[in-house]
């Protein structure tokens, strides 16, 4: 039996009268590249924030890296990396200062953090910009620095919440190459949320979310076969009766 990196049972969240997430059953295997696909407002970010212990569930339970998200928040947060949709870097600090700040937040001793930061900066082609304020970086570089920040403490699970939003095609491509490289090197579990269908294609499995409900779950190939569709876009259409956003709706 493979261990589950993420195991959500009947997980749900209401914001007042709004049912953001209904009752989600989801199992993400260790080392899996898992895609959460759906339009804006489908409940993707809510799901990520519930799993990352940033929100308390209204119902249901979830275990992340074998820790309960309600009772063992600290242990969950220690095991995960989370790259938010918008940058979380301090724009007034340099790239290196931001990573040092993150290293301290994650309680990494300086002798561990220093070589790791150097290696990440090299790997993410930020070495020359290390002492520049984040403010002066391009969107793609900022995103690279965000991801470097997200994996600095070597998490076993990485959440990427709409990581390509606002990036140009070249920056997107290089981002996917970095993610591929990371997964190959460390066997990292990656949970990706996106409303771009083509971004979910390389995933091992994809869950389609719509209006806070799980509409479909399977490998991209299975989903296409089951729906008799040629693309995930058509799968989505078949399950939800409406199309995904084509353009970058943010």
């Amino acid at each position, binding site marked *: 039996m493979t261990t589950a990196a993420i195991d959500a049972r009947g997980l749900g969240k209401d*914001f007042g009268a709004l049912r*953001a997430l209904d009752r989600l059953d989801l199992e993400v295997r260790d080392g899996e590249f898992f895609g959460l696909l759906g339009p*804006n*407002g489908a409940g993707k*970010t*809510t799901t990520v*924030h519930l799993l*990352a212990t*940033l*929100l*308390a569930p209204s119902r249901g339970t979830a275990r992340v890296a074998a820790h309960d998200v309600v009772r063992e928040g*600290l*242990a969950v*947060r*220690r095991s*995960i990396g*989370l790259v*938010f*949709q*918008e*940058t*979380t*870097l*301090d*724009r*007034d*600090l340099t790239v290196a*200062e931001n990573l*040092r*700040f*993150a*290293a*301290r*937040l*994650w*309680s*990494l*001793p300086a002798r561990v953090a220093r070589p790791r930061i150097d290696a990440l900066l090299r790997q993410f082609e930020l070495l020359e910009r290390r002492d520049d304020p984040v403010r002066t970086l391009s969107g793609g570089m900022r995103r690279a620095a965000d991801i470097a*920040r997200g994996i600095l403490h070597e998490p076993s699970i990485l959440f990427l919440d709409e990581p390509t939003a606002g990036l140009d095609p070249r920056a997107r491509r290089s981002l996917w190459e970095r993610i591929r490289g990371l997964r190959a090197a460390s066997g990292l579990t990656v949970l990706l949320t996106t409303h771009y269908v083509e971004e979910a294609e390389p995933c091992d499995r994809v869950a389609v979310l719509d209006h806070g409900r799980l509409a479909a779950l399977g490998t991209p190939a299975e989903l296409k076969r089951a729906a008799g569709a040629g693309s995930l876009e058509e799968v989505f259409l078949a399950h939800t009766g409406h199309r995904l956003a084509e353009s970058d709706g943010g």
Partner: protein
Amino acid sequence: MRAVYGIVAREFVRFLRQRGRVLASIGRPFVWLVFAGAGFAAVFAGRNEIDYRVYMAPGLLGMVVMFGSLLAALSTVTDREAGVLRMVLVAPIRRRTIAFGKALGATLLGTAQAIVVAAILLPFVHLRPTLAGALLGLVAVVLSGLAMGALGLVLAASIRSIENFAGVMNFVVFPMLFLSGALYPVRHLGPVLRAAAYVNPLAYGVDLLKHALLGGWARAGYGGELPVPLDCAALALFAIVGLTVAALLLGREGGVTRTAFRERR
């Protein structure tokens, strides 16, 4: 502990990088000394007993701590807007550790500013504190900074945007300053305002600073008005209650995420 150090270190790096903020924090008390000092000196009831500029000195130091610590703690609002707060919230740290780190950073920042200002201001008004007075002054500054930092955190955790923040400055900072005894003795106020002064943390901080610096004028009625232990206890109480509430507010679900959720809809 390393996380607390990280939060404090970031406050200092950010502060020192903002030239305007550094200059304002050092220049502000002197602007008050010159302009408010000139005007109030003429109408000050005790002008035969004490030079008004000397009388103002403890209050101005209290003001430096208030602005320094309160503004530093309120930077939590900008942290939220810029997204940095999320990086902190997703780190494996308890909410109360975050609150403590922020308050400690604010305290130390306020204290450092007060020490720099005191080094210029006290010789300038020919006020030479005794060693015991200087030490008590340091205690006063640190305790006031902690109380102000905690208050700033509560405000930052409960207000959502920078626009509100300006309102807070006008409706919190100025009443606090005027009801602190910084510019005139609290005992001269009417009973209602005097009662208001005693729920004002700055009043205890300024009172403690008067004990520390104006001991020579105590008999004339311009030293501290309350017992030293009461001042210390009141400031400590403000700090503890503030930190507890701030930790609760920060931990309250949706402190950050709910706003993010709303933006996305």
